[in-house]
């Protein structure tokens, strides 16, 4: 790694630590249900309208059913908005109804905090759909994840009285209201104003046609009579030459969506190019703030965890495990991209870094950001389950592309999504103490709560859901004709594209190897299935664990208790994440990016 890459990483981590601490402390107050009187007065009409009371704590089943009902209504609303947008206001570009399969995929995608986008925003969605459907779900899906993390942390913190305890984990309606109202909206407002200052657009104007300085010649895929791209006998798309003297500039309320897209680790771009688009991410400073915003709440929740369980060392241990894995990932992806493409070297292309160029593999990267900021962004957006991109991941080198894939395959626990990163990591922490308990012959316990048979069954379900969805889904896609039809690059890279898509969907990331043509009924259906179950079939066992833990007595620390805050436990936790999270995928990775790397560097 170059000195500038190290400097950027250090600046990023330092700024993150400074900003995450106060946010984590405030989130802890919300988790402990210690809300100032004036906030309670603002909330009161909302609870009255909903017919609930924040002090009415729920058991895990009620909490889960409330969460599922809330998200079902959200999905139906997003679907309906897309299908009806042609007759609804705030549609200056005259967008018609989104196709039923794409609307279904997008509804599930935004409700599940995945924000996989099979469509291009500027050519598909009206402003109303973007604001009322997608942006609103950006808030609610993020709040849902934080609410689940709150429930699990309360499970550890509460001192149940054993079998007679009801295992109460909090009030879902109060959690989602407070997180949205007092955390996500204020942070997003401040960030949106900052983005506008940097040049991100925020308007309701019609798209603008402008004359370009020179005539632009380009190639575009040739479509057949059925409107589908034509392919030659090798499966490659048939291209045709075209020229243009004008360009249409898409407009819209971008900044307001951009802020929560990052803060909520959603990642769905207003434009198809996402954060590589100058209207979404205009400057180096906006790029740095976007990266910090992605990790802000996941890092803050580690501090929240420490505060709520009454031992800050526990939060630091989880944060340390996440940070070590993240830094290692950056240390792999950045040199891989700085190394460039050996096929270009044989053609005499200068790929060395200098004052005039970034050097390395610049395919698919913004010249404004270069290698360092693009590689760091790629690691951040896939370590967290964000999925926003400022470079095209399909154009990363094989090893560089494998890093985002692996970060997702670890289960999105390296910082991870807002809420989902913490509860995913705590699942691995419980598994780690179970393994340690087996080794030393003691009943495993974490933070004074015994991890028993019921918890281990639930942990097993939570850990196995996503690998099953990814591997089975990939197998179906590479067997089915409709799955193979979407591959733009036949061979190992085509396999990587499909593996990446299923990995991204089931782990609720949303980024893509964009070479895969996934806006088809087959992929819209398959990926929606992976996104929904990857989100909610994980949340349900996590809430069950929360309820189970909340009912347990909290045992005192004794000389025989395994310390879960030192370097030994951090190492054990990292080992568990790597072994359990990654080993499932090694054979699949060997068929995709590893083969690609060996072919490229043979």
């Amino acid at each position, binding site marked *: 790694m170059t000195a500038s890459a190290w400097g950027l990483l250090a600046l990023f981590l330092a700024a993150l630590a400074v900003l995450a601490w106060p946010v984590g402390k405030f989130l802890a107050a919300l988790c402990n249900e210690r809300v100032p009187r004036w906030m309670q007065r603002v909330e009161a009409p909302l609870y009255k309208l909903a017919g609930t009371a924040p002090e009415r704590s729920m058991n895990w*089943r009620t909490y*889960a*059913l409330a969460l*599922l009902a809330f998200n*079902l209504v959200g*999905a*139906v609303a997003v*679907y309906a908005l897309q*299908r009806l947008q042609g007759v609804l206001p705030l549609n200056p570009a005259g967008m018609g109804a989104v196709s*039923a*399969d794409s*609307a*279904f995929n997008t*509804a*599930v995608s935004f409700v599940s905090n995945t924000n996989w986008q099979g469509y291009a925003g500027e050519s598909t969605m009206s402003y109303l759909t973007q604001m009322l459907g997608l942006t609103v779900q950006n808030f609610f899906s993020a709040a849902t994840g934080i609410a689940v993390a709150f429930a699990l942390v309360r499970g550890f913190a509460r001192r149940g009285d054993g079998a007679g305890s009801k295992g109460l984990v909090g009030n879902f309606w109060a959690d989602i209201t407070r997180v949205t109202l007092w955390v996500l909206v204020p942070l997003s407002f401040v960030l949106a104003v900052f983005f506008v200052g940097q040049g991100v657009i925020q308007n309701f104007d019609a798209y603008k046609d402008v004359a370009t300085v020179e005539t632009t010649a380009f190639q575009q895929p040739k479509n057949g009579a059925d409107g589908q791209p034509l392919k030659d006998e090798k499966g490659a798309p048939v291209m045709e030459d075209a020229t243009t003297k004008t360009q249409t500039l898409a407009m819209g309320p971008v900044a307001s969506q951009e802020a929560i897209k990052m803060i909520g680790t959603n990642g769905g771009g207003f434009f198809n190019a996402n954060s590589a688009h100058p209207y979404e991410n205009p400057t180096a400073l906006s790029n740095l703030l976007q990266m910090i915003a992605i990790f802000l709440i996941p890092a803050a929740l580690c501090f929240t965890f420490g505060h709520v369980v009454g031992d800050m060392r526990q939060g630091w241990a989880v944060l340390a495990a996440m940070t070590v894995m993240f830094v290692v990932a950056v240390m792999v992806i950045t040199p891989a991209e700085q190394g460039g493409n050996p096929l270009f070297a044989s053609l005499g292309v200068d790929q060395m870094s200098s004052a005039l160029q970034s050097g390395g593999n610049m395919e698919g990267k913004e010249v404004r950001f270069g290698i360092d900021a693009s590689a760091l962004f790629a690691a951040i957006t896939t370590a967290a389950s964000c999925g926003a991109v400022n470079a095209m991941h399909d154009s990363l080198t094989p090893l560089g592309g494998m890093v985002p894939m692996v970060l997702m395959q670890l289960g999105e626990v390296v910082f991870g999504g807002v809420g989902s990163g913490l509860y995913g990591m705590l699942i691995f922490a419980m598994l780690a103490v179970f393994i340690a308990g087996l080794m030393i012959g003691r009943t495993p316990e974490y933070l004074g709560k015994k991890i*028993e*048979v*019921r918890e281990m*069954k*639930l942990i097993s*379900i939570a850990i196995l859901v996503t690998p099953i969805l990814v591997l089975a889904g990939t197998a179906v896609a590479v067997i089915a004709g409709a799955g193979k039809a979407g591959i733009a690059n036949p061979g190992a890279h085509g396999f990587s594209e499909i593996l990446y898509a299923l990995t991204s969907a089931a782990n609720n990331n949303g980024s893509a190897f964009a070479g895969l043509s996934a806006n088809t009924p087959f992929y819209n*259906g398959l990926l*929606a*299935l992976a996104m*929904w*179950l990857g989100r*909610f*079939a994980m*949340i*349900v*066992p996590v809430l*069950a664990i929360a309820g189970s833990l909340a009912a347990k007595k909290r045992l005192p620390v004794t000389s025989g208790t395994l310390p879960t805050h030192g370097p030994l436990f951090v190492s054990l936790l990292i080992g568990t994440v790597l072994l359990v999270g990654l080993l499932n995928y090694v054979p699949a990775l060997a068929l995709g990016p590893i083969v690609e790397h060996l072919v490229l560097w043979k």
Partner: protein
Amino acid sequence: MDIVWMGALLALWVVVAAMVVGLNRLEGPNPPKSSSNGDAS
């Protein structure tokens, strides 16, 4: 087509709602039955 895709959404919802019911019944192993004869092993 809307009915088909909304039916698919409902089916997905029912799966996870059924998980709530199913996991609620998930318990640890049954406690060993008391036997006056003691274990054979």
